Each structure stands twice: as structure tokens, then as C-alpha cells.
């Protein structure tokens, strides 16, 4: 087991009426960004809170580097977390908020200034939390998570409230931290963002695991129904050539053809043999959004 590995085993949370998390198991590896995805109400936040000992599981375990969060001797130096409801006292300044955490964790107060610098909040360090914008609050949360220079980061919807520049900044920051060998587990419902950021994905729905694995692999495995988009001035001639290969052809709304049943190289070869001119040839891989919707279809309902 690597030092920063997160292992979730048989994790279950039963509320009075609702089984929020249902026998969930997955692992998260170090040095990679793992996207934790699921529809609203799938149990993502509950799972992360159980991992961090904020919510007591009904059954199962969640460990970080082999230890339960509650058993970590120095939690902030091991795990940094930003949860959706991360907040601060409205009347306390951002810097003082971090100083309180430093005090508890036995970190020097200058760490507060260092992480403020790191997240670009130095100009607002002495302003009260109530005057912070949503994006500034998220940055303060990230600053707090980085205080102990932890090797594991757990982030719940960190992109919420960030502007495009902030989202790019966050992406670069997380990629950089993963490149240093840290474990990054980040939940989100912004799928296009995740597609750019994540190496691995864990997708859950209704509290149960749907799929987990490297992003590419998950996308490929779900791309069986993928199509090839092709554009030509002689569609009828190409369609005839493709029909011989057993491919099915349908026109797309913008005048191109969508070919199913054969790979892009075969389409290109068929066009060459038939002497047909091509203007466009694209293998359309399913994107994360398609895969996600396909996998969680019918399970996103309000429970």
C-alpha cells in the first residue's frame, strides 16, 4: 500500500429513511487526480465526510494511508480537506481564521501568510470573512487545506463559485500538487472540468459504485457506440462504399455523415479506394458527459 492511498471498503450510511451510501468500495492512488463523480444526492459528500470522521459510518471503513482519519496523530499534516460547507466566522479576518487552525495544529503562524500568498489572497488577508466573494472563500478554504503541507487532499466541489480564471488556477494547482506525488480526491459535477483535470474517476449513483478506473479507460469502454463523422462532396458514393463494409450511415444535421460500425481508418481507406474526396474525418469519442449520463441514467432521481 502506498503512503497516500485512500481505501474505502464496504462503506455504508443509513439515515432514518435513506441509505445515503450503500456498501461502497473504491481506492484512490497517490500521484494522480481522482475525480469523484455522481448526480446530486448520490452520496458523494456523505462519503467524503465519513472518510474524514465527520460522519460516523453505519458499516464499513475508510482509511488514508492505512489509518482511519480519527487515528491520525497529525491530521492536518497528512490530509487537507475542503468541504462544501467550509466556512469561517463572519467577523473574523481570513488571516486570523488560518491562525486559529495553525494554533491547534501546532504550525507556526507564518504558515498562514505563506498559504495566503500561495492562493493569492494576501491583499485580502486582513479583511473580514463576511466581505469575501464566493471565489475568495473557496481560495481561503484551499489555503486552510494546504496549511499542513499534506500529502493527501480531499476536495468537495472546489470549483463552485470560481470564475473561469479561478477554475484554471485551481486546475493548475491540483495538477501541480498531484505531480509532486500527492493524492488528490476531488468531487465535482462539472464534467467538462473533470475531463480536463482527472486521471482517474470514481462514479457513484444512489450511494453505490457505478464504475472506477483511469478516465481514458472508462471513456473507451463506454465508447462502443461511438461514431465517425465524415464530410465529403460526394456523400452517395461514399455511403455505397461504406455499405459494402457493413457500416451504417446517417446524415447529420450540419450536412456531414455519421458512420457507425467501423473505425475511422477503415472509413478513410474506403474513401481512398472509392476515390472520394474527404473534407473532414473525426472519430467521435464519447465525452465524460455522455458516459456519465449513460451510466447514471435513471439513478439520478430524487431519493
Amino acid at each position, binding site marked *: 500500500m502506498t503512503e497516500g492511498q485512500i481505501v474505502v471498503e464496504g462503506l455504508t450510511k443509513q439515515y432514518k429513511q435513506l441509505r445515503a451510501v450503500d456498501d461502497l468500495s473504491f481506492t484512490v492512488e497517490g500521484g494522480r487526480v481522482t475525480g469523484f463523480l455522481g448526480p446530486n444526492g448520490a452520496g458523494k459528500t456523505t462519503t467524503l*465526510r465519513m472518510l*474524514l470522521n465527520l460522519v460516523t459510518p453505519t458499516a464499513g471503513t475508510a482509511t488514508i494511508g492505512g489509518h482511519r482519519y480519527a487515528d491520525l496523530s497529525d491530521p492536518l499534516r497528512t490530509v487537507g480537506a475542503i468541504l462544501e*460547507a467550509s466556512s469561517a466566522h463572519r467577523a*473574523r479576518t481570513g488571516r486570523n481564521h488560518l491562525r486559529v487552525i495553525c*494554533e*491547534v495544529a*501546532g504550525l507556526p503562524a507564518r504558515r498562514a501568510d505563506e498559504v495566503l500568498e500561495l492562493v493569492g489572497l494576501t491583499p485580502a488577508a486582513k479583511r473580514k470573512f463576511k466581505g469575501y466573494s464566493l471565489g475568495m472563500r473557496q481560495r481561503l478554504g484551499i489555503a486552510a487545506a494546504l496549511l499542513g503541507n499534506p500529502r493527501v487532499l480531499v476536495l468537495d466541489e472546489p470549483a463552485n463559485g470560481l470564475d473561469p480564471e479561478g477554475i484554471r488556477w485551481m486546475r493548475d494547482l491540483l495538477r501541480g500538487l498531484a505531480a509532486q506525488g500527492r493524492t488528490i480526491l476531488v468531487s465535482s459535477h462539472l464534467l467538462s472540468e473533470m475531463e480536463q483535470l482527472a486521471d482517474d474517476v470514481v462514479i457513484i449513483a444512489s450511494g453505490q459504485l457505478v464504475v472506477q478506473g483511469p478516465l481514458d479507460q472508462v471513456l473507451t469502454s463506454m465508447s462502443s457506440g461511438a461514431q465517425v463523422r465524415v464530410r465529403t462532396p460526394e456523400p452517395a458514393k461514399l455511403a455505397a462504399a461504406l455499405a459494402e463494409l457493413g457500416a451504417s450511415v446517417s446524415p447529420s444535421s450540419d450536412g456531414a455523415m455519421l458512420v457507425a460500425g467501423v473505425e475511422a481508418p477503415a472509413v478513410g481507406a474506403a474513401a481512398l479506394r472509392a476515390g472520394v474526396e474527404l473534407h473532414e474525418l473525426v472519430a467521435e469519442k464519447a465525452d465524460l458527459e455522455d458516459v456519465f449520463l449513460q451510466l447514471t441514467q435513471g439513478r439520478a432521481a430524487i431519493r
Partner: protein
Amino acid sequence: MIRLVHAELLKIRTTKTWWIFGICLFVFTALAATFWLFLANDTINSVASGGSFLPPTSDGGPPDGGPPAGGSHELDRALVFAAANIYTAGQYFGLLFVMVLGTLLVTNEYYHQTATATFLTTPRRTSVIGAKLITAMIAAAVFWLSTTAVSLTAGAIFFSAKGYDTQLGEWPVTRALLLNGLAYALWGVLGVGLGVLIRNQIGAVITGAASYIIGTQIVQGIVFAIGLVLHEDWIFKTLVAWPAVASNVMVSTEQVYPGSPAWWVGALVLVGHAVLFGTVGTAIMRRRDIA
């Protein structure tokens, strides 16, 4: 643990709450001390000129059970009673403020959604609540010292102006002064416990203040009514079970109400309440989900 207490104190210091409370308490203490000074002035003047000191103990004699004493003994009792009242002036509001401060130490975490950060930093819940209990007692001690400084100064000036001793050498007075400090600390603990039981900030503060101010009146009314109807004197004694009454009993040199028990009963009752609130609060905090 020391780091946690430091952090809790830093939490108090980095918001304005503490000095708003401090200023209010200073004003209330000054007002209360003034009230007791005027009352003491009247009582002492009347006893010194031969009047009898009220209220008498239940059997009509002095607490030591000796024969009813003459004017000089009456004056001593009046002086001791006055001194204890003046030196513990402001207790009524002081205890309320300390309780509210203790409550805020907990409910602030929910109101400002900082509970998550707090328990992420310290997953050992017992330590967190323990630090809050200690912090509440430290803050209470600071409030007690400041109010006592105000009332001691006022009292000392008063007694020397009237040509009497400051009464600080009298054990019942010293005892009242010290027990007042204990009462402050214990009410801080009660406040923390209340904050755990009622997470809603406004709900907890209103419940605490209402129980303290209105609840005390209601409980007194009910107990006296039952006692009068049943003609049983022991029923009056049970009134001390109410924390606000217990705190009053433990700092008074005379009977707070007819049939009220000795000071140490009040002290024990209040310690009991604090232990109960502290234990229940810790037990709940250990199990509760932080959502």
C-alpha cells in the same frame, strides 16, 4: 490540549464578542454595586442606630444557634451581609453573560459552519469539547476578576468612608467572594453544555436566558405554591436544585429565602449540574454527525 485551549481563546479574542460582553458586564456590575451600596447604607445606618437586622434566620436566632444577641452582633451580621452582597455584585448578569459566552463557544461553530474545520483539525472530539469547557472557565474567571475588581474597589471605599473595616477578614465574606468565582466558572460549563444540546445559536441563547430570568421566577412560584398548599417546609428546600437559586444560595451569608439550605448545598448542587451538563455535552458531541 493546551494548544486547543490557546486556539479557543484566540477564537474569542479575534472577534468583538468578548469586549462587548465585557463592557456590558462592567456597566451592570457598576449598577448592581451601586444598588447594594445604597441598600447597605440604609441597613447599616438603621442597625447602628438600634434597629434590628433583617432578614432573621428561620429560628429567629443567629446561625450559630446561640442566644439572640444585642446590637453589636446585629451590626456585625449586617456588615458581613452587606459586604458579601457588594463584593459579589453583578453576579446576576455575570452568570448570564458567562453562560451565553459558553453557549456561543459551541453554537458559533454551527452558526458560522466552522465545526467542519474544527473537527478536521482535531478529530478527537473529546479534546475539542474539553478545550471548550476549559476555555469557558478561563473566560468566566476573567469576567469574575474584572467584576470583583470593580465591586471590591466600590465596597472598600464605601466601608472606609463609613468608618468600618472592609470585612474581607470575615470568612463568610471571603467565602462568598471565592464561591462567586466558582459560580462564574460553573456557569461557563453549563453554557457549553447548553450549546451542545441546542445547536441553533439563537435558540440556545434565548432558551438559556429565558430559563435563567423567567424560568427562575416560574420555578420559585411553583415550588412556593406547592409548599404552601401541602404545608411541608422541606419542599422549600428543594428550590436549591434550580441552578440560578443554587448560585444565589452559595454566595449569601444569610438565608436567600425562608428555609433555604446552607451555602455548601448550593455549591454542591451547582457542581452537580456542571458535571451533568459537561458529561452529557461531551457524550453527545462524540457521537454527533457534522453535516
